[in-house]
């Protein structure tokens, strides 16, 4: 009952922000909002950017790739040198090269896969300046790509899709910082820590218990970690840690922040192309998947796991509590984790590795569909638009007609680009998983034997290939193999989709709009929404079904056998 209320409140709050934040974001990227011009203009001046000059897709993409490369180098250097940079009350040493490489790629690609424990690895300098600042930047880059693609759909006979530098700057200044700032204060009010002192030692007079409690600049990072669908925790325990996510209120706030921008961008899209219903059709497809996964996950976690049941706790009113916090209980844990895995966020408030097989499957399944349900900030929208192109192509094949999307003729070039963008992730994930299970360096990291061990590896590459960052954390992945392989998979998963998406935006911008005729397949209809759901399900579901049957499905069907 309380879970139903939680979901209802979330849906109402998201409905309101979908309308108003969505509309605001459209105004931000169409440059009608300028209240931070006094900060914005000097930035362009210092960087030598003519903000009135627009870029074609190639220049837009070049700027994006070069900037991301610089961001990786910057992050890498700080992590390596953190021992000498100050703000280091716990005296952390420089991060090792392989781990620094993996981590810098991870934060720049908006993945936030963490092969380290924050509390024993990162200085406050690294947490704030290297990692938390990338949470803003990588999120804004994601939205910029989506906006670039949507401009391509909107414009006619245009050689340009916007200015990357302007889109990047405006996303950070006008959207991410103001919302994150307000949210961080709510986190603190509820008990999240925000200080520059490193630790406090306590000695309980009751029983003599001693404890060194670690502190840090946590709340400000927590807000952007959720809002930017980043997911990288200050602590190893991430959103399960009481200093990151102290109460039921911060738990629902986290879920709301995660969904805020990905959901709102469907309105932004609709407004930009001149029909809110077009955005609503995409949102409906996202919601169908989101709520299906949520329902399955909630049902699965109401039961204790096979191991706990065999040990003697066959029935528990609280469901599966292994790896879950008492203040959340099973249901609020599932709400958080399913939301974060469907949005390429990857933060967790409970141990994914200890979920029931089907509970873990819902998290993995959400990622395997390509992170479009609703996906990460920007990445969710541009990826589902690629699926939409494939969908109208499939629809066109059925009736033997040249497909159109929003009045743009979809021809061979567009279909090829969309197909590349949609298929690059499954291919990368499956090949990497195949390699990892075939070599001893890959199998060495597994904590749980049997099918669950396979799930740990599959989950790791699915998560990284989709720039999610969630983990079956039993896998010991701070090894040379996993650091390097993971970084490559994250890079392909990010830029292998961004580049086709921008190229598609460029191709579409050059085209004129053809007037809809009687035979036009309407893309704001229930029929289109259904077909889109089918296409996403077939591509994601069929490519991954064999792999899933070796992992979570085998585990579920093992009739309580222990491994």
């Amino acid at each position, binding site marked *: 009952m309380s879970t139903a209320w939680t979901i209802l409140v979330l849906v109402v709050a998201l409905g309101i922000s979908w309308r108003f934040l969505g509309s605001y974001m459209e105004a931000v990227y169409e440059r009608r909002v300028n209240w931070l011009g006094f900060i914005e203009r000097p930035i362009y001046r*210092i960087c030598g950017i003519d903000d009135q000059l627009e870029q074609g897709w190639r220049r837009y993409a070049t700027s994006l790739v070069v900037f991301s490369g610089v961001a990786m180098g910057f992050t890498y250097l700080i992590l390596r040198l953190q021992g000498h940079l100050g703000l280091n009350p716990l005296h952390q040493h420089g991060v090792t090269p392989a781990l620094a490489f993996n981590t810098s790629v991870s934060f720049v690609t908006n993945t936030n896969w963490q092969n380290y424990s924050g509390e024993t690895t990162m200085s406050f300098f690294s947490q704030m300046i290297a990692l938390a600042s990338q949470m803003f930047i990588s999120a804004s880059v994601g939205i910029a790509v989506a906006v670039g693609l949507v401009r391509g759909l909107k414009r006619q006979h245009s050689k340009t899709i916007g200015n990357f530098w302007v889109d990047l700057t405006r996303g950070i200044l006008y959207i991410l910082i103001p919302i994150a700032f307000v949210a*961080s*204060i709510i986190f603190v009010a509820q008990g999240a820590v925000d200080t520059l002192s490193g630790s*406090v030692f306590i000695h309980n007079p009751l029983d003599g218990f001693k404890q060194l409690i670690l502190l840090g600049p946590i709340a400000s990072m927590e807000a952007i970690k959720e809002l930017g669908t980043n997911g990288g925790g200050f602590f190893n325990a991430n959103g399960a840690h009481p200093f990151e996510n102290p109460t039921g209120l911060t738990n629902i706030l986290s879920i709301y922040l995660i969904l805020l921008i990905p959901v709102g961008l469907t309105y932004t899209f609709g407004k930009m192309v001149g029909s809110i219903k077009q955005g609503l059709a995409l949102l409906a497809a996202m919601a169908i998947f989101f709520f299906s996964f949520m329902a399955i996950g909630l049902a699965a976690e109401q039961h204790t796991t096979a191991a706990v049941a065999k040990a003697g706790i066959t029935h528990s009113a609280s469901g599966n509590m292994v790896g879950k916090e008492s203040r959340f209980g099973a249901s609020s844990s599932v709400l958080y984790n399913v939301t974060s895995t469907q949005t390429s966020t990857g933060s967790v408030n409970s141990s994914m590795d200890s979920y029931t097989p089907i509970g873990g499957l819902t998290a993995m399944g959400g990622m395997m569909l390509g992170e479009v349900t609703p996906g990460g900030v920007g990445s969710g929208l541009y990826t589902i638009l690629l699926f939409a192109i494939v969908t109208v192509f499939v629809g066109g094949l059925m009736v033997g007609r040249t497909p159109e999307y929003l009045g743009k003729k979809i021809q061979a070039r567009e279909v090829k680009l969309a197909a590349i963008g949609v298929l690059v992730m499954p291919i990368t994930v499956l090949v990497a998983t195949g390699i990892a299970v075939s070599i001893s360096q890959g199998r060495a990291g597994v904590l749980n034997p049997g099918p669950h061990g396979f799930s740990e590896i599959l989950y790791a590459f699915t998560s990284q290939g989709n720039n999610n960052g969630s983990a079956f954390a*039993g896998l010991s992945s701070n090894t040379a193999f996993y650091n390097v392989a993971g970084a490559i998979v994250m890079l392909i998963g990010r830029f292998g989709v961004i580049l086709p998406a921008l190229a598609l935006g460029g191709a579409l911008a050059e085209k004129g709009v053809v007037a809809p005729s009687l035979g036009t397949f309407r893309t704001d209809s229930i029929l289109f929404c259904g077909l889109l759901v089918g296409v996403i399900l077939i591509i994601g579901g069929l490519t991954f079904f064999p792999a899933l049957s070796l992992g979570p499905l085998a585990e579920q069907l093992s009739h309580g056998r222990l491994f």
Partner: protein
Amino acid sequence: MLLIPLKRSLIMMVIFAVICGVIYPLAALGLAQGTFKYQANGSITRYGSALIGQNFTGSSWFHGRPDPYNPSSSGGSNLGPNSKVLYNKTKALIAFYKSRGITPTQSLVVNSGSGLDPDISVNAAYAQAASVARARGLSTSQVDQLVKSEIVGRQFGFLGSPFVNVLALNVALSKTK
């Protein structure tokens, strides 16, 4: 061709590192320290942090989750649903509580997600009441009453799960004669 974006990227990276990595967190931190000082510094009382669990042992205290309670190494056990290790650990903990005359509920015998869970379920507190009362020479109804007064309900009536904070309960217990 790449030189201009490279130069711009370098400058912009530094600007945003300052805005997002220095100004934003310090402004939030300053406001937090000014308005919610107690929370922003870890909710520390003379007994410890209200939010970080402690490892209570012995039969005269209420026990929390079977967590390591080491803040320098947060996280769950990550044992899988069909794990033999999880089975053995859980079985041993059930036997431990049974030997004290307690029928444990699940949250007393399985690890949390943070390894620092300060709370247990309401039933987990009631399950220990009789045993704690016996060890302290109090009446069971007295301790039951204490547990009842320490129940933290769902926030706004629907958020999260009801729980009992183990430290708060034990502090209250230490003041009960």
